[in-house]
Structure formats: C-alpha cells, structure tokens
C-alpha cells in the first residue's frame, strides 16, 4: 500500500468510523463557563496503565470537546509502552436526560520488549448512550480500536532466532479490537469521579486478547 493510501485510510477511519476510550465526561455537569477539563486515570487496558488527559470545550451549538491524552503501561521501563491519542467528543443528541455521544481519536502508540519495538498509527471510535444528571451519570459504550499501520524493529534476540525477519512498515492493518461496556460517574463542585469497565474482543468475534477486559478509574477537574 502506498503512503497516501495509508494516510487516507487513517483519516477516513478517524473521521467516519471511529469511536472509544475517550475522557469520560458528564455532559450535564459541565457548566457553560467551564472550558478546560483535566483528567487523570488508571486501570487495566492491555496492561496496567496510568494516564493523563486534557480536553477543551469548543463554543459550538452542539456540545463538543477536543481532547488529547497519554497513558503509560506500568513496569520498570516506563517509556517503552505508551499510547497517545488526539481527537474529540460530541454530544450528538439529547432527549431529556438521555444523551447520545460519540468520540473519535487518532492514536500513536509504542510497544517494546526484549525482542521487538512496535510503533503504530491507529484510530478508535466510541458510541455512548446514557442517562445524565448534574450529579451523576450512567451509560453504555461500544467501540472499535484499529491498529492501522505498524512499524516493526527487531532486536538481536529475534534476529538470532530468524535472521530473515523483515523490519519496517507492515500493512494491511495488523489488529483490531471491539469493546463494549458501561461507564458512570459522580460529579461534585468542579470534579467528576468516573468508572468504565467492559469486555474486549478481537474483530473476528472468535478470539479475545489474553485479558479480555478493561477497567478504568478516572478523575476530571474542570476549569473556566
């Protein structure tokens, strides 16, 4: 696949197809003057991870935030396994206290172990439908995370095993996982405490990651 096609795939995925692991927001507790949301989170998502994020609320007719985040997998080597995301969330539709939200992100992530270093560009997307009150919310979520294009760089341990292994960019997409679960939270003053949990399945719906669950505890602080 030529680079331009990879780029097009990435952008199409980003803007038309994706939705998932975004900041967990209580739209009903978000005041008009509150423009900035700081987030810290921890939990299990393909490993025990710690993350921070920032979201900026746009002055648009439909409630919308732009956001970025970074998370690191725990372990003695902090910077070898991490994920960065940039994208946005939109509160698409409301009927009284019921809200339909969607989020899309582009992803850059890295994985390193003694045999290989992987760098990946991907995208995720999440649809969230829930019941929102100023003090609390509960919602269901469904998402998809696609590893669109991945760079492989092998270490000596693996090249000793297989000298002819190829390094470089690999296509087509090297992975894809669906997730479905619940999210909820409690809001007070300028803060939200949130919880997300659910199940992960690979895109063929026949196999699962080694640990097919995710769990995330988060904290948001909102600023004017």
């Amino acid at each position, binding site marked *: 696949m030529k680079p331009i096609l990879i780029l097009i795939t990435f952008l199409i995925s980003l803007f038309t197809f994706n939705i998932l692991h975004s900041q967990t927001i209580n739209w009903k507790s978000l005041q008009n003057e509150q423009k900035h949301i700081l987030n810290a989170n921890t939990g299990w998502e393909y490993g025990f991870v710690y993350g921070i994020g920032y979201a900026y609320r746009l002055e648009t007719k439909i409630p919308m935030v732009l956001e970025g985040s970074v998370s690191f997998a725990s372990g003695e080597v902090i910077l070898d396994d991490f994920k960065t995301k940039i994208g946005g969330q939109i509160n698409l539709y409301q009927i009284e206290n019921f809200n339909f939200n969607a989020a899309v992100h582009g992803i850059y992530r890295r994985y390193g172990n003694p045999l290989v270093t992987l760098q990946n560009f991907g995208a995720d997307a999440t649809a969230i439908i829930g019941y929102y009150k100023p003090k609390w919310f509960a919602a269901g979520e469904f998402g998809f995370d696609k590893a669109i294009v991945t760079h492989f760089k092998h270490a000596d341990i693996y090249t000793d095993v297989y000298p002819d292994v190829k390094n470089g*960019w*690999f296509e087509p997409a090297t992975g894809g996982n669906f997730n479905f679960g619940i999210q909820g939270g409690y809001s007070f003053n300028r803060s939200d405490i949130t919880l997300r949990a659910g199940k992960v399945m690979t895109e063929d719906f026949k196999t699962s990651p080694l640990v097919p669950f995710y769990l995330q505890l988060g904290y948001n602080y909102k600023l004017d």
Partner: protein
Amino acid sequence: MKNKVLSAIAMAVSVFFFLGCEEENSIDQPGNLVPKTVDQDSSIPSISINGTQLHAETFGNPNNPMVVFLHGGPGSDYRSSLNAKDLADDGYYVIFYDQRGSGLSKRHDQNSYSIQLVLDDLTGVIAHYRTSNTQKVFLFGHSWGAMLATAYVNTYPALINGVILAEPGGLNKKLLDEYGESSRKLNLFSEATSDLFYMDQFLTGKENEHEILDYKMGISTSFSYAKGNDEGIEGPSPFWRMGTAVLNGFIDIAENDGFDFTTNLTQYDTKVLFLFGEMNKSYGYHFARKEAMYFRNAQIEEVKGTGHEMIYFKWENVHPIVLNYLNELK
C-alpha cells in the same frame, strides 16, 4: 482553533507516513515475520506421515537404539534441544521432529487437534525411522514433550523400552493446574506483564492466521525468562517458530475435556527417569515425586545449576544422567 488543530494532526501524520514508508511489508506474507514451514519451503528436511508433513532430522547410525526427542509446548520446537544430538556419538540413533503444527512443521486448523492424533503422529515417526523390529525405542521428552511421552506409554506400554521425562508440566489436568498456578504467577505492575499483554492492541490475528499468531507468540517468549521467573529460566533460548493454533487447540481440549495420562501407567514395568532442575522453584523434588508415583519404577534426578530449560542451558549436567540411564537399558 479547531481547524488549526486538525491541520496540525493531518500534517504530523502525513510527514510521519511519508518519511517512514521506505519499506512496506505484508503482515501475512509467509517468511516476513516467521520462517516458512516445510510445506512452504521444500529445502527444509521433512517427513510425511499420518496426513501431515513434519520437520524432522536424525543423527547417528540408523541401526542403533532409537532415541526420539519430544519437544515442549505444545507449539514449541526442538531447536533449543539439539544438544541432545550428542547421544548419537554415544551409540544412539537420535530423532528430532517438530510436532504437528509446531516449529517448522505444517500448520493445521486449531480445531483439528486431539491427543490421539499426536500419539498417532509419534507412532508414524517411529515407524518411519525404525530399521528393524528388534531395534529398541526410547522416548526423551521435555515439558509438554514429557507429558506426551507419558501419554504414549500410558496407551502403548509394550512399544517403548525406556522413557526420560524432563519436568513434565502435569500428567493429568489436576497436576497441570497445580504446576501452572505455581509457575505462572503474574505481577500486574511488572514490565514482564506489560510485555505480555500490551501488544494485544497492536497485533490481533484471527483464529487460523498462523503467520501473525505464531509471530505474536514468538515475541511473547520473553515473559518466560523474565528476571526472577519461578521456573529458573536463565534467558532466551533459540526456537524456529511457535505454533499458536496447536497450543490453543490443546488448551481448549484440557479445559473442555480434561485429560489423564496416568490411567494405565502401572502396566509399564520399565524404569522411568525423571529430571528436574535445581533452580525451578515450581517443580522440585516434591513435584517430581508426585508425578513419579504413578509409575511402578521411577528414578528421580536433580540437574544442578539450572531450571526448566535444562537441556539448553546445562546439557553438560543432563547428558551424563541421561546416558547412564540409556546405557542401563540398552
């Protein structure tokens, strides 16, 4: 501001891709990430038996007593056990083969495996190489291979003249679970745990996408020799290619049907040699004795200065014990 942010994202992504795409590979092309198997590369030595094609090699005089080596896994291969070919210089005909769906042998669908099938494969391998009806046949199994050797003498006790079992990971489901719980403790916050699980968002692979799944399992092997591992594994050992479908197939069998390779072992009168590594905290004399109790006649020997991968890391300590045993029965 929104437009500026989106433009910046698009620009960053474009630059990255255009700079990075000097080399493009297909994820599922044979040979790109893992070696080709015998059915994809005719230069690899192989035999065709029981409806499959196995990667196999022999060492020594074909008329000498046979020692058939059974590697671990399921899904690993015999590359790290090639030290055992020294037995050819000691007067034995040594046969190595990668089991069905393992190493460089032909791949099959995950749901095609059964215990009887791999026993039949072993029968086929012995028949393929045996040069006379009086030629003695010994089995030398490591880990899963030792479980398979036990299953074979449990089913066909009259056909085998001696068995060497290097740390079989459980001769029945109960013992397998006991050993698994003891040897595979997870520290959720460790680097080894992240190395094992974090890649699941980069590489998935569908049920029988062998290239991707085998590669993924291969690069996961660092978990087994992580610092402080309970099995006393010193570091990486060589392999050709992991077999994920066969591993998953046998995990399904163990979980759904269970297994017990001990039901008929009292019919096997010949002395069996058990080996355990001094550094394997999960096995030890206690577990070896528990497994050896199923046999009427067993000899238990500790291999000093090593753990589960004793054949690769301390062959010099394994060799004399194995040779003495074989020479007694030769």
